[in-house]
C-alpha cells in the first residue's frame, strides 16, 4: 500500500523531524520504493521461522553487576548547553498553557 505525503509527514513528526516540501517529496518517494522492495518478504513462508539471534549469545553472559562510578561527570556536563548544577535542564514539557 502506497503511503501519501501526509502519512509520511506524520511519521516524520513522530521522529521529531520537520521536512521542507522538497524533503517531504523525496522522503515519500524513497519510502514507497523501499516498501515495494520489502514486499518481497511475502514470497517466503516465515510462519515457523524464529527471529534471528546470535547462537553463541547463550555463552555470553552480561558483565558482573557491579556499580562503577564514572570518574569524570564534569566532562559529560561540560558538553551540554543546558546544565543547572549537576542536572541537565530541558524546556517545558507540557505545552499550550
Amino acid at each position, binding site marked *: 500500500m502506497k*503511503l501519501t505525503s501526509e502519512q*509520511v509527514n506524520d*511519521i*516524520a*513528526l*513522530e*521522529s*521529531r*523531524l*520537520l*521536512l521542507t516540501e522538497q*524533503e517531504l517529496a*523525496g*522522503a515519500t518517494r*524513497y*519510502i514507497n*520504493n*523501499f*516498501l515495494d*522492495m*520489502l514486499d*518481497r*518478504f511475502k514470497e*517466503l513462508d*516465515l510462519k515457523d*521461522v*524464529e*527471529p*534471528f539471534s*546470535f547462537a*553463541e549469545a547463550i*555463552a*555470553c*553472559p*552480561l*558483565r*558482573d553487576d557491579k556499580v562503577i562510578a*564514572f570518574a*569524570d561527570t564534569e*566532562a*559529560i556536563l*561540560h*558538553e*551540554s*548547553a*543546558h546544565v543547572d548544577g549537576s542536572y*541537565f535542564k*530541558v*524546556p*517545558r*514539557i507540557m*505545552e499550550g498553557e
Partner: protein
Amino acid sequence: MELYELNLSDAIQGLKDKKFSASELFASCKARIDKLEPEIHAFITRTDSTPPAETSGLLAGIPTVLKDNLCTKGLRTTAASKILGEWRPPYDATAWAKLKEAGAVLMGKVNMDEFAMGNTCGNSAFGPTRNPNDLSRVPGGSSGGSAAAVSAGYVPFSLGSDTGGSIRQPASFCGVYGLKPTYGMVSRYGLISYGSSLDQIGPFARTVKDLQLVMSVISGHDPMDSSSFRDKDHDFTHREDVSVKGKRVALVKEFQSFTLDAPIAEAMAKTRKVLEEEGAEIVEVSLPVVARYAVACYYALAMSEAHTNLERYDGVRLGYTVKDAAGIKEMFERVRSYGFGPEVKSRIIAGTCLTEPTRCEEYYVAATKVRTLIAQEFTRAFGECDFILQPASPSMPWKIGENDEDELKGYEADLYTLPVNLAGLPGLSFFAGYAGNLPVGLQLIGPRWSDPALLDTGVILERHLGSPKIANGGK
C-alpha cells in the same frame, strides 16, 4: 624511500632497529598529509600539529587515523554530522584505547558518510573525500577517509567500521586491505551506533600482515560491550608457511548471472586460478535467500535500528542545540531537522515507519526472520566449503556525483557485502591488481571466528596477486 611509504610491520622494525626515530616517521607522514590533503580531503579533524611524546608498546610511535565515529576522549567526534557539533566524548572507544596503550600516535579523525550511512563518503557534513588513485572518483564508504588515508600513504594503518560493507567496499575502491571481523571479535564500546546488531570495527592496511598485527591488538573481550565474546582467544600471528591445499573455496551459484564491471570479473578469474594452482578446490554453493532477500532484509533492520539509535540526539546533553525553544517538542524538532542530513532523515523516517505497531510484524519482524534464513543458509554453505570468494562491489569506483539520484539502486550494489553483516561473519577485502590507475579489490568470506584463517589465506593471495602501491592522486 620516504618513511611514510613504509608498511606497518616495516615501520615497527625500523623503529626497533633505530634506523629512524618516531619523530622522523611522524614528520614524514605529516609532510605527506600536508602535500595531498588539500586535494583528497580525508580529514575532519587533524591532531598532528605537534610531535608526539615518546610511547612504548607493539605500535610505539606508529601514526594512525580513526574513522570519526570512534570516540576519542576530549577530542571532537562528529560522525560527519552537524548534529554532534563540537562534541568531545568523555571516554575513549575501547579499540582506540587498546591502540593507544600499544603506543600508536593519532594523526586525526577522518571522514565518513554521516552516521556511516552511505557508500561514497559523500554524505558528509564536511564535504566529500576523493579517491587517492583518481581524484575525480569516490573512495567508497562509509569509511572512505580511513581507506583513503592508508592508500595515500598518510598512515600505515587505520580503523574504520563496517555495518554493511563500510570497510570492505572502500578498501577495494582505494586499493588497500580491509577486514570486517566476526561480530563480537572487536569491542564496539565507544563506536557511535548505527545498526548495533550489524556494526563492527576493523582495520585497513597496505599488507595482510599489517592487518594481522592490528587485529592482535584490538580483538578480544571487553566488559563494556556485552556483544564482545568471552572465552575466544584468537592467534593473529603472521606465518609465511601457510597453505590452501585441500581447502574448498566456493563461488556463489546465484551470483554468477549478475553483471560485474569487466576488471572485477577478470580479477575473479585470476584469483580463482591462483587458488587452484595453490591446491585449493573451487566448488559452488547456493545462496538463493541471500541473493533475492538480503538487500531488503538488511535495510529494513539497519533503518529500524538506526531510528532507535538516533533518538538520543535531541540537543539536551551534547552536540548542536537551540536555546530559545518554547517547549521540548519544538527544541527536538529544530535540533534534529537542522542537525541531520537528507540520507539520515530518510533512514530515520523509514525505520520509524517499519517499526510502528501497524507495520512492525509485516516488515521489521519479517526481516528478523529472513535474517535467520540467511544465517542458516551461510551455515549450510560453510558445511560445503571453507571460504566464499566474491566481489566486494560489482562496480569500479564511480565518478563523484554519479549514482546519487536513485538511492535504492545504490543499495543493490551492496549485495556482496551486507549479507556478511547479517550473519555476523568475517570478510576480508583484498587487493587483486590494477585496471589502469584504479585498483581492483575482491572479498573472501569465512564462517564465524575464522578471521585468522581468512587472513592466512590473504597472505597467500597477496604473495601471488601483489601488494598495492601508495596512491598519488592519480599522478
